[in-house]
């Protein structure tokens, strides 16, 4: 592949991820609205929101680290998207793989954590402490799932994982071969999105929206962009591991929207857990299901 071609891919992959992510945010709001018997926002509302936030006159900064935190939060996701293969584009997926991607996805969280820390607001710091605790909770079932997937396909190379599933047809999909791991993975994915009942670190009624408490204007806009990427990444990673990736863009989009719709539909009918209950919950069910799935895969 020529350098020029690769460069185009590296530019296109995050861009596509962002646009798809915008529509996922729209979908999330529509699902919430329908469950609450409202109409929901119009098609371009997420885009309007971002433009509005970036253009606000009041942009309160608590210092350079506050700014850099937002840059890292968005930039980390922009970089991570190039490691996630999509139909027709592999980017640098073959130079990283499943483990690198998992750890790259921690960079935006680290950036956000640094930025919030600089704000010197205890609500924000408590929010980050809870977010990191949640990460410790859901990453344990997630790595069990990742190990099982890597073991089953015999590789951590995402491009190969996709091509193995596509050659074997639907019967060779991760979800068909490893149903228990697929369930545990969906569980962990839901927790990783931080939506109810796992919404411990935003908790508006308790810690004043946690990490977002001192975020105004384009700082909040940056977090909005980050959320678009986060939803897209969760859906695409799950589709890559369990649903055969994308044969073409149509099937790929159907899959990733379906994956993200599941936790969203659950989220809007649940209240929030306490932090310690979240840990107990996530360490019990998805871990048990995941371990059982791992045993099935390995023996």
């Amino acid at each position: 592949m020529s350098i020029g071609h690769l460069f185009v891919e590296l530019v296109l992959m995050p861009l596509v991820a962002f646009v798809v992510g915008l529509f996922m945010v729209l979908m999330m709001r529509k699902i919430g609205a329908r469950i609450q018997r409202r109409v929901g926002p119009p098609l371009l509302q997420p885009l309007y929101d971002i433009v509005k936030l970036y253009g606000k006159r009041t942009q309160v900064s608590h210092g350079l680290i506050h700014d850099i935190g937002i840059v890292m939060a968005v930039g980390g996701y922009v970089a991570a998207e190039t490691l996630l293969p999509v139909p027709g584009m592999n980017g640098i997926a073959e130079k990283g793989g499943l483990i690198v991607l998992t750890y790259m996805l921690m960079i935006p969280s680290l950036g956000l954590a640094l930025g919030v820390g600089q704000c010197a607001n205890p609500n924000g710091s408590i929010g980050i402490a809870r977010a990191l605790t949640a990460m410790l909770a859901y990453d344990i079932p997630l790595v069990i799932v990742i190990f099982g997937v890597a073991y089953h396909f015999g590789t951590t190379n995402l491009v190969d994982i996709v091509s193995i599933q596509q050659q074997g047809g639907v019967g060779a999909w991760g979800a068909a071969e490893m149903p228990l791991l697929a369930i545990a993975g969906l569980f962990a994915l839901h927790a990783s999105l931080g939506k109810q009942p796992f919404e411990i670190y935003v908790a508006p009624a308790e810690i004043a929206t946690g990490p977002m408490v001192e975020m105004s204007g384009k700082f909040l806009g940056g977090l909005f962009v980050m959320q678009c990427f986060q939803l897209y990444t969760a859906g695409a990673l799950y589709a890559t591991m369990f649903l055969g990736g994308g044969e073409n863009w149509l099937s790929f989009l159907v899959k990733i929207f379906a994956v993200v719709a599941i936790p969203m539909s659950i989220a809007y009918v649940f209240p929030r857990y306490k932090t310690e209950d979240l840990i107990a919950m996530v360490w019990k069910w998805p871990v048990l299901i995941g371990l059982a799935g791992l045993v099935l895969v390995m023996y």
Partner: protein
Amino acid sequence: MTGFDQLLAVSAVTFILMLASGGWRLSGWIAAALYGVQLGLLVGLAGVGVEPATLQFSVLGHGLSWKFDSLSWFFAVITVGAAFLAALYAAGEWSEAYRKQGGSLRQLHAALAFNVWSMLVLLSSGDLLSLFIGWELVSWASYWLMTLSGGLAARAALRYITYAMGGAMALLAGIVLVHSAVGSLEFAAVVSAVPGMGNGLLWALVLLFGAGFGVKMGLLPFHLWQAAAYAETPGPGAAFLGAISSRMGLYGIAVVLVQLLGLARGLELDLVPGYVSATDLLAWVAALTIILPTYTALRQNDARMLLAWHGIGQGGYMLLGLVVGDALGSAGGLLHVFNYATNQAVLFMAVFAVIHRTGTSDLNKLGGLVVRMPLSFVAMLVGIIGLAGLPPMNGFVSKWLVYRSLMIEEMPLLFLATIIGTLGTILSVYKLIHNTFLGQLRLEHEHVAEAPWSMTIPMLVLCVVIFVTGTVPGLVLEWVAQAQAAMGLPVIDYTPGGVASDSGGLDMIWVVGVLFAGFGVGALLFYSGGRTRRVHQLDNYAGGHFLTADTRYHYSDNFYAGLMRRIGPWYRYSFRWLEEALVSVVETLAMGMHGLYRQRQPALALLGLAFFTIGWAVWS
């Protein structure tokens, strides 16, 4: 005189010079220069294969010899590099402050130089007897450095030397066993005799040597001495000890258990036939060494203690990689020695820079220092990203190698254990940087200045090393591959950016390049938005209240409250219980022996002892 002789000689000269005139104002710079010379000599020795020392002699028919191979070189370069930067850190303003507090610079410099020299002696041992001599030298050298501060430090050091003597006894017993079975203490003779050894004897050797070296490494359950002993050592000493001292235990395990006894033989030793072998046992000890100390670190409220506990935990990754034993795993374990040393050194230096300026490392009495000490903040940030093992720093690469080898070797639970350790590290180091540098700047720290250049330059040098070896890990993997070859392990197939593999490789050059391109896009997006207005830290949301300078508005204590409500009870008693159990086992054994030779059979025991002593002397 071989190149290795010159190295040892310069190292000894450094020690003598520091002993004679270490208290002189310029001696810190002289020490740094001499370590620089040693580093230069080491560079000259790179890749020469085996370099024997001229000095060899024999005692009671045993030849004592020293030689320098690629494995020794790898550890030596980290040792001397750490000493060089520690001496540089200590040379300028820090030494004035240390002298004013009543510390003896002569003792500090001499102890540091003696540590380096004794480690070089240990790293170049050519047979089991010289290994033991080197081991004892290193133990007492560390003890010297640890006691310098007196008070709490002396107590911690006493605890260390008690553990170390116990470990040395175990080693001595192992060496005697080897001698009685093989009749020689030469490495080559031992290697050729191992296939003929019985399982019982081998088990005894694995346990004795494992425990002996494990004490120094802080392997579970011998880890309880380490955190306090390292944390209480004066700044540069703590950075040096934290970076490399415990790794001498890993070197011992690499030489005796991996190189001499062999991993393949360890796999045949069954604890539970067919399921758990001696190698598995070591791997699980390593995994527990990762998890328990890391989560102990999470609960520390003193920055130095937090780092020291992490030092114990990170040792587990190295041992785990080494005993997994395939090309990727052992490369990951060895690479982590280097990577961890750079991370830990820079973190200790940053913490001691904060202590130098504010006088405390209590994580509940700091905060907001990033605006006053930005360079120290950068140093700590680079250090924590490396220690937590996230890209783009070097700690990620070595941990990635360990993860990958555990995947390839199909060890899901050990893999999970390493990830649990990494997650705990991320939580803990965020607390460290948040409580020290982020959040509210306290009133009393309003006029704190950045650390002096003599302290920031070593930190920034380490930051560059951490970043460059994270982006181009091939630089260090070259040394690691040579060390693997010297140990007789499978050699890693490395590229400049990492590892090439059909089943999922790693190319950090691309990953880091794309990451920074991503940051560029993020910055473009951010700075194209509206103009920001910088506000004072007290211009902050407080639920309608007005904040004043005397309001404590920094969340630091009980940082992971929700997590601790869940896992807090698991901590209770577990560590106390562990040490008490260890002590009572030793006590029971001692009482048994005591009873045997004092009360029951005084004459017989005395006769037996005399017989064995004379017999051993005559026979050897």
